[in-house]
């Protein structure tokens, strides 16, 4: 048998699933004792170039509350043309179209290599994608110009039949009519008034008929003809380009000492109301571009008086943030409405100060939209990131999908506790729903309004069997993930992944279980739990909780003699885990110090949706070292890696830092790279740049790109991430000549580990 490493990799490649444990303890008590829950990271739309979708529909179990999809793990009686559901054990006849089935003539979904399969639903007409731009006009001239250009450019990236709409706002909110000749028309809303969706639709003159229940495509068709605000790109791109070109800054004067009045709340409400009234349950993306915080009306985050600064973490801890609760509530309600309609909201916030992401984050977090944060629209960070929203995959399809519904089915021994990711609960109760909630729980179905190939959810499970009635050995627990979504080609598709894991008796097979531990997945999953808690709990409590979990895990699996820290050892499958936790504790996901509330929200937003690899980078940035001594090599994220004659490339996901050591920097300054005889130095300088470009090409959102050197002010990005093994406190104690001391009082990994060992072996803990 392959190693667990390989097994894990194979599973991830095939099904997009990484379980924390790849052997499951056979009882609930044992499961609890493992500290890290039985859980997985699941990437529903993981790119599978090798997996062409099948053109028919899945075969479902006929039991009403099961409806599991026929899969390779089912028992099939080819002669009787009957298959047994491996979740509820219902025996189902095959549909007539499967008449020719035999053990040599099996449909794809029965083959083991198709544990993940994608079906295309043929029924019903398809609705075009919808892109609704919601644009803040309270921007600096230069910024607005850049944004206008980006938007105009984006029109060429949209599928020609996609519908586009434009809403601009400042003090007022304007919904632009797109198909008019001779005169530019728009509907205007006061920026301070909270309107119901019905009012908005009336005011926009939308036909109430179009507002339908469950995605009646029929209604959507009618709406296409009648809705003046959403028109196919190919029909209005000239108009829209002109319209964007004529877009002016918000004309209302901004008195000295005031912020511009920005009606973000109402603008969103109008956008959501518009889509709700015209295209419910059709894939739609509301793209909000803001250059500052909402300053008036519902959802206002800060008043327009400049002398009252926007809330900081300090204010929030002191309960001094006036608008926080109200605004958050407002945006949450709106996010939920949006999610119900299956639309998603992106936020592109470009401002030097905070722009209210803390309050608005739920808009994207609950609907699967993007959040992009930058300093200005006139930066390549924004421009390229925005362009990348419309990137295409190997098939030429957009890397985006809409209106996803993820359903998790479990075999009887397992129940699902919840998920953490960019989704909302659909409140689907069922036999596989656990009462024990983790993350968004209490349901077996979640809606993910906007998703892309990297969207990843953490899903938590619970072993049901009691200790005295464990699952019999040899059986397997089965989990089926059914994801229905609207593909960017507007097809509706269903992707089904069915996975199974063996049961193991924790008493006797603890080593097996231990070796089935996926410490990377576990670290990310625990981190998600920590971040999820951090949203509602005080920072220190979360850290304490994480520490306790770590200690318990070490106690459970470490080998040591009681009260002898030096004897402590962890097996290979857990060896990196404490280090992940160390960096996690220092990460911006849990530490708010030095981050604004908006930044924290932004970091957390990305953390709870990226796939495992990206998440790990976020937890523990990657550091490469370039030198004359050999090819680039990954080095420890440690201050000792900062050497004078090296160039370092650090990728934290959000930042990409190139750091030139002191000597290198001096050489560069002296211009050696210009001299022919130092061609190799030139090569050395270029190497990290090329690597960085590679990362920049693929990363979404674009990381902040920093090129710095020893002593540069931006070197702080690097210094704050590395393990401070050398600080001003212990520089001489360690007596090393290399590396760079970090001026910090933070504990280093070494100290952390020592402490951990002490606690793990302590008999009193």
């Amino acid at each position, binding site marked *: 048998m392959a190693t667990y490493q390989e097994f894990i990799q194979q599973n991830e490649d095939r099904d997009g699933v990484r379980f924390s444990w790849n052997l499951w303890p056979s009882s609930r008590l044992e499961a609890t004792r493992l500290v890290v829950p039985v859980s997985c990271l699941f990437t529903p739309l993981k790119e599978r170039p090798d997996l062409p979708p099948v053109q028919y529909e899945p075969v479902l179990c006929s039991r009403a509350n099961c409806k599991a999809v026929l899969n390779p793990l089912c028992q099939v009686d080819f002669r009787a043309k009957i298959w047994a559901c491996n979740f509820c054990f219902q025996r189902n006849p095959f549909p007539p179209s499967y008449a020719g089935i035999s053990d040599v003539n099996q449909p794809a979904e029965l083959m083991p290599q198709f544990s993940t399969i994608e079906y295309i639903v043929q029924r019903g007409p398809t609705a075009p994608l919808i892109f609704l731009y919601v644009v803040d006009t309270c921007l600096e001239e230069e910024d607005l110009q850049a944004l206008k250009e980006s938007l105009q450019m984006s029109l060429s990236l949209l599928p020609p039949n996609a519908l586009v709409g434009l809403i601009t706002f400042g003090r*007022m909110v304007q919904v632009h009519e797109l198909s008019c000749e001779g*005169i530019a028309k728009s509907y205007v809303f006061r920026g301070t008034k909270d309107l119901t969706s019905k009012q908005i639709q009336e*005011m926009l003159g939308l036909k109430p008929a179009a507002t339908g229940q469950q995605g009646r495509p029929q209604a959507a068709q009618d709406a296409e003809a009648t809705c003046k605000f959403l028109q196919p790109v190919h029909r209005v791109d000239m108009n829209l380009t002109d319209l964007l070109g004529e877009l002016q800054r918000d004309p209302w004067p901004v008195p000295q000492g005031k912020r511009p009045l920005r009606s973000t709340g109402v603008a969103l409400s109008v956008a959501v109301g518009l889509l709700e009234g015209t295209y419910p349950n059709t894939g739609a993306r509301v793209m909000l571009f803001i250059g500052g915080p909402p300053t008036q009306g519902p959802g206002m985050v800060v008043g327009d008086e400049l002398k009252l600064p926007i809330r900081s973490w300090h204010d929030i801890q002191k309960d001094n943030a006036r608008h926080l609760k109200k605004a958050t509530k407002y945006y949450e309600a709106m996010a939920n409405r949006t999610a119900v309609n299956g639309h998603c909201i992106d936020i592109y916030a470009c401002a030097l100060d905070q722009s209210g992401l803390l309050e608005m984050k739920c808009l994207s977090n609950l609907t699967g939209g993007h959040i992009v944060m930058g300093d200005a629209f006139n930066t390549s960070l924004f421009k390229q990131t925005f362009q990348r929203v419309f990137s295409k995959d190997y098939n030429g399809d957009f890397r985006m999908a809409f209106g996803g519904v993820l359903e998790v089915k479990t075999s009887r021994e397992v129940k699902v506790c919840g998920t953490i990711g960019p989704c909302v609960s659909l409140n689907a109760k069922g036999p596989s729903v656990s009462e024990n909630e983790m993350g968004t729980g209490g349901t077996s179905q979640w809606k993910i309004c906007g998703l892309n190939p990297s969207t990843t959810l953490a899903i938590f499970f619970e072993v049901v069997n009691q200790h005295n009635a464990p699952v019999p050995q040899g059986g397997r627990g089965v989990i089926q993930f059914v994801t229905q979504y609207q593909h960017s080609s507007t097809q509706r598709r269903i992707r089904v992944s069915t996975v199974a894991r063996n049961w193991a008796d924790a008493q006797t097979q603890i080593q097996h279980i231990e070796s089935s531990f996926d410490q990377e997945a576990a670290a990310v999953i625990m981190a998600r739990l920590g971040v999820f808690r951090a949203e509602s709990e005080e920072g220190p409590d979360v850290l304490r909780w994480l520490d306790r979990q770590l200690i318990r895990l070490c106690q459970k699996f470490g080998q040591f003699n009681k009260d002898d820290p030096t004897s402590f050892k962890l097996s290979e499958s857990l060896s990196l885990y404490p280090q992940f936790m160390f960096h996690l504790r220092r990460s911006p996901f849990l530490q708010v110090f030095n981050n604004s509330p908006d930044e924290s929200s932004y970091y957390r937003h990305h953390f709870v949706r990226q796939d495992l690899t990206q998440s790990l980078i976020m937890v523990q940035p990657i550091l490469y070292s370039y030198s004359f001594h050999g090819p680039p090599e990954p080095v420890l994220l440690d201050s000792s890696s900062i050497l004078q004659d090296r160039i370092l490339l650090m990728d934290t996901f959000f930042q990409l830092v190139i750091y030139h050591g002191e000597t290198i920097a001096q050489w560069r300054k002296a211009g050696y790279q210009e001299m022919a005889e130092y061609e190799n130095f030139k090569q050395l300088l270029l190497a990290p740049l090329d690597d960085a470009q590679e990362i920049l090409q693929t990363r979404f959102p674009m990381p902040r790109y920093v090129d710095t050197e020893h002593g540069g002010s931006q070197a702080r990005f690097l210094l704050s991430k590395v393990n401070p093994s050398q600080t001003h406190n212990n520089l001489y104690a360690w007596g090393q000549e290399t590396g760079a001391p970090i001026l910090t009082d933070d504990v280093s990994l070494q100290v952390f580990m020592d402490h951990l060992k002490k606690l793990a072996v302590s008999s009193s803990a």
Partner: protein
Amino acid sequence: MSQQGYVAAPPYSQAQPGMGGYQGGFGAGPAQPLYGHYGGPPQTFNGPPTGMMKAPVSSAAGMPPPAAPSQYNPNVQQNGAHPQRYPPPAAPASYGQPLQSQYNNMAPAAPPPAQQLTNQMSTMNLGSYASGPMQSPPPPTNSVAQQPFQPAPPPAMGQPMMPPGPQSPHMSPIMSAPQSPQANMPMAGPPMAGPPMAGPPMAGPPMGGPPMSGMGRPFPAPLPPGPGGFQQPGPGPAGPTGYPQQAGQFGGHMAGPQPGMMGPQPGMMGPQPGAFPGSAGGLAGPPQKKLDPDSIPSTTQVIEDDQAKRGGQVYNTNIRGQVPPLVTTEFPIQDQGNASPRFIRCTTYSLPCTADLAKQCQVPLAAIIKPFASVPKNETPLYVVNHGETGPIRCNRCKAYMCPYMQFIDGGRRFQCGFCNCVNEVPAFYFQHLDHMGRRVDFYERPELSLGSYEFAATLDYCKNNKVQNPPAFLFMIDVSYNNVKSGLVKLICDELKTLLDNLPCEDGSESSAIKVGFVTYNKVLHFYNVKSALAQPQMMVVSDTAEMFVPLLDGFLVNYQESRAVIYNLLDQIPDMFAESNESETVFVPVIQAGVEAFKAAECSGKLFIFHSSMPTAEAPGKLKNRDDKKLVNTDKEKTLFQPQKGVYEQLSKECVAQGCCVDLFLFPSQYVDVATMADVPSHTGGSVYKYNNFQVETDGEHFLTDLRKDVQKSIGFDAIMRVRTSTGFRATEFFGAIHMNNTTDIEMAAVDCDKALTVEFKHDDTLSEETGAHMQCALLYTTINGQRRLRIHNLSLNCSLQLSELYKSCETDSLINFFAKSACRAILNQPLKNVREILVNQTAHMLSCYRKNCATPSAASQLILPDAMKVFPVYMNSLMKSAPLVGSTELSTDDRAHQRLSIMAMGVEDTQLLLYPRLTPLHNLDVGSEALPAPVRCSEERLSESGMFLLENGQSMFLWLGQASPPDIVQSLFNVPSLAHLQGNMSALPELDNPLSAKVRSIISGLMEKRPNSMKLQIVRQKDKPEMLFRQFLVEDKSLHGGASYMDFLCYVHREIRLLLT
């Protein structure tokens, strides 16, 4: 006579540049900086010289006067009615008395005193003459001669004349004539007398007696005294003796007027001023049947007489309490220290000194102020005075502005306020030495010291938020609901706006108008347009949140027309098409106005909304209206609810509009009931107007509407106005009527005030007034000009005070009185049953007249109706008022029309109410095509029509061309180009343009009238006996009304009976 003088007189009159005359005169070089206008060099100034007439001047007589008399002379002439006759020079001596300079003049003029003494008549003459102007002050007259009379004045007034009554004491009183009107008397006198008459305004009434030639027709007729009842002395007959009473019951006719008259029959006296025995007689004895309609006082006659007597003569305002000519009379005015009657007219120019007296006579004491009245081209526009950064100089206590009534004392270092008597320091920069008369040396250089009306440049303190004001804006808000689009109205408006906007009013001298324009269209939602000049095409912004209106844009909404012309053209071209397909028929209304207010608020300016609206606002929005028209309420106690606006947002909206200086003009195009009472509520509180075109059709009503629109856009106007009327101690303004809003009891707020808006202010006594000092009022209007400058317009007027009721009656002004009654009745019907209101009107009429009879008239038979000369035709107006649409209580009139008229009346000036209540009926069938003059109007009665005649009737709101059944075909042919009446199209609204003299003449008459009136009128052509004639008939106010309402004759009899009841 005077004319020449007038014309000639360069000094005051002509100077166009500045104020007329001033310029030359005051030239004060130095001064100028302050007043631009005054340009002239100082020297000229000599003015005051000799015979000045102005009051102040008079005193001057002795003065130093300076030099150059020449200039003044002319003036002098002007004053005097007849310059030539009384050469100024003569006078000096007489002037001892300060006050009435005029008198003086006159005096001299007058026939030799001696005569006068002897002959009352003669005196009369004097009086009358003098009176013209103001005699009131008469008492003091200086002329020796007059003295004797003095006594007279009191009682007499209107009385029946005592003719010649030699001096019987009684008589004399009667005569009071001197002062006023009485004019009648005059005649008798020797030839001389003649001269005097001329002037007096009153003329009319007085009976002038006799036979005057001029009068011709009128009254005199009665000569043959009416049978029984009438005493009429007939003019002539009465002859000399006739005197007393009877003579003209009615005062005979107006004889008075013509100067010429006098000479003639001395006898005439007959007529008394107002005595109107007439009906009385009837009552008394035999039924009036016999009454000859011609025997009752005729309005047309009174008007004609006044025009003849005072028309064309310069009216100088230098005399306190002087009664101006009738509003119908055309006369140039020269401001010499009191506001011209164009700006202020009073119900009486002689206030009773005590509250008791006022109560006793029940004559309302009121002033009708038209602060922006347009001034004819040949009169000087108001000067603008700038007192620099500290703002206008005002009394520290009562805050009255510097004016001719401030008395400088203490060598010019201090001044005493003419209103509250507080003594104030004169600011250093304003200090000026006094001459030996105690008058400032710069008297003539400063309009605020020598004129009745002028303006001050206001400082920032007078601006909203202490910020410089922006120029006002005009916002055009067009209802584009189905009806309006379909009727073609929207297109009509859009097309018209293109040219109309080129003619926005602009301040004199500036190239283009500073007024910004903006456009909104609406049905159930509002569409705003961005017409910024930089745009290639207009942008439309739809606001559907009518529950909470706001303005969606700032920049580009209110623009300069010239700059944005291309975009605006583009827009106006597109609007009719854009909504061509719309079938939205519901509209909103309140949000439209709110949008305007918000727009002005955002732009920080004041302005005016032109709303073109067609239907009742039924769409779901604030101010949604329900049909509440209920004809069953007519003639019940609940009828008043038809006039009351529906409650709710409208009231608040008016306040907001006024606070922002947002005036609302509403053009209504209803095809059914639209609840005008409510919809017009805002316009009627913001100084706006309401125009109503029932069942509008572009072909027939288009021109009518466009003319109104053009006038409305172009008329001179001030914005964001606040006005206060200050009075000297003893009385104060208590009630205010007009298109105004009042937040407290003294400040009159108007979002805008234009040249046609008048407000009526009623005064009450606080204390006793002094005959000596008289009564002053100062109306100060703070407003924003069309350029955005803040100004204070000041109108000052001084009145006499008297302990004698006869003075009061003599100085009454019927037209003003009726204006007051019309407005107060129109307000009263909001709160009381119409029946009560009508009763009150009749009772008050009877009371006023009986009081006169009791206190002022000579004893006479109870059966004789005696009317004060100045109020001779009051009953016909009163009767007409009670028959007016709002007051008549007929179910046949549409509720909307009644409400509309009620509201229009509230803002009317004296001219408008006069014409409304006594339409002008002009015969056109025997036109003298060659003559310039208009044919003399005839009385509004069916009897005056003739089958073969053609008459033009107009009352400022409607215009009819009535064609008798037997109209000569040649006339029909030349006017209409059809062989006979039968071929006439039914719905003509204009005369075809035919190339013949008659057609040209008639059309020019019609257009001339339209030109003169504030509103355009739709010409309706009616044939005798045709159905539409009914409409026409209701304007024949002397007849019984179709909708119920007495004929003039019946009413007069009724009033007479009431009077008799009161007297017994």
